[in-house]
């Protein structure tokens, strides 16, 4: 079995395939020399002492109501999902 997944599977988009325009963009990167810089720039990494606390916030009743209102399919107040156990 091939280790590579198809673009269709990777993207979950039917008929997904390479685009000529995008390929042209990527070729410019492939053909460029690798710069001699550290690519791990991480400018916006948060300092340990500045990390926000690991805590749970309860949503407001209105927010919960709106989240439920957005369910694509709902039954008795619960989200109905497609069958997840498959052969």
């Amino acid at each position, binding site marked *: 079995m091939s280790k590579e997944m198809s673009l269709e599977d990777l993207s979950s988009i*039917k008929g*997904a395939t390479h685009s000529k325009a*995008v390929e042209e963009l990527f070729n*410019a990167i492939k053909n*460029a020399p690798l710069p001699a810089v550290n*690519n791990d720039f991480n*400018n916006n990494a948060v300092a340990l002492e500045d990390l926000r606390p690991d805590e749970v916030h309860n949503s407001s009743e209105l927010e919960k109501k709106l989240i439920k*209102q957005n369910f694509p*399919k709902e039954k008795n107040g619960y989200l109905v999902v*497609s069958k997840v156990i498959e052969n």
Partner: protein
Amino acid sequence: MASEIIKIHEKLVNKEISCTQLVQEKLDALAKNQYNSVNFLLSDLALEKAKQVDAKIAEGEKIGLLEGIPFGVKDVFLLQGQHASASSNFLKNYISPYTATAIQKLIDAGAIPLVKENADSFGHGSTSENTIFGAVKNAHNEELVGGGSSGGSAVNVAKGYTVFSIGGDTGGSIRQPAGFNKVYGLKPTYGRVSRYGLMAYTSSTDCVGPIASSIEDIELVMNVISGKDYHDQTTYASEALDSSKALDAKNITVGYYSDFIENKGLDANIKKDFLSVIEKLKAKGVNVKPLPFKNADTLVSTYYALAMAETASNLARLDGSMYGERANADSLKESYALTRSEGFTEESKRRIVGGNQVLSQGHADEIYLKARALRAQIMDHFNKDFKEVSVILSPVSPANPPKIGNSLKDPLAMYLSDIYTIGFSLGELPTLTAPVGTSTGIQITTAKKQDELTLKFAKFLIAAL
């Protein structure tokens, strides 16, 4: 142009107009407009808030500068209880469960949201044609595009339908439509304004900023929406902007990228006008220095490789299981694929597929990781350039706005048209489009966290031209 916010504030305080009348007039104009700039009107919410402002004025209470000022919101921000469609089929019926930090801060200051504005779907585009609500028409010529992706926001400000609008800028989405519609648009330093509640496109360059008809209004809005936010750990604490103190020409060194100006794709008139601006600055005693842009050949590719990778990851959450439109199928996998195939536009699919391609095994090293290294090099070059100059000027776009219908047929040309805006996004630098100098304006860029200098220089430039 003087501050529209201050002008309206004075009219409200002096009771020359009621807030309800003001809001109703703007809502009527938006409802009637033929520019496709509106996705959803927020009439009930806006009129209710206007009544509260009127009651305060009638009671003789003081109102803040932004109180009662009507503004627009690009339809990629969440506003609790209101639609947030990202101009997509996917989210056309989605209702925001909470409110974006920048929008909440404006509401807390009393400003009144009027409209969710048309844009390229999920920010994917440079013309505001990639939308289910119809291509946004340019405020000055309806046959031309409004620019993108915050096209509806720029058109609404240019036509006076909103006093200011809040846009999102990932690779030029505030600055380019501002230039195309001849208004001001600021992409602040990355992290100055919280991204919480903005639908994520390219999280490492996404910025929230204002579009307005004056520098004063840009500043007033920025001083409300900026600041550290618990919900966005990339934000930083910042001082209020104050561009009132004039700059001295002797203390400014202006740079411009000669590689940008010698680009064969640059319109001859934009080039001529840009160089004329440079000459006028020299005549005012400003020291001007041409600089090389060393990554010009790979700039667009670097941006799009990273943007596509990040948007593929960010939009993986849209599968129709928790929210949005769902296409039912016999299996979960088939349901995901059908939902995503029907929900995304062709341009969004192109970017998601490209992103998954660069992140996949066998391509990550030669494209994604190399693009990250190229970005680091670009940032390094900016740091060095800003040791030699205090301000960098550049055109906003290589050409004038194209005719509606031409750009989506040629995606590569559309990507290349972003060449002057995307570098400053990769550099996280504050950049303002000022509608002066060339037919699509001038970009003013300064070093990171020098947003105030950007606005001060804009005032200096306008006085000099």
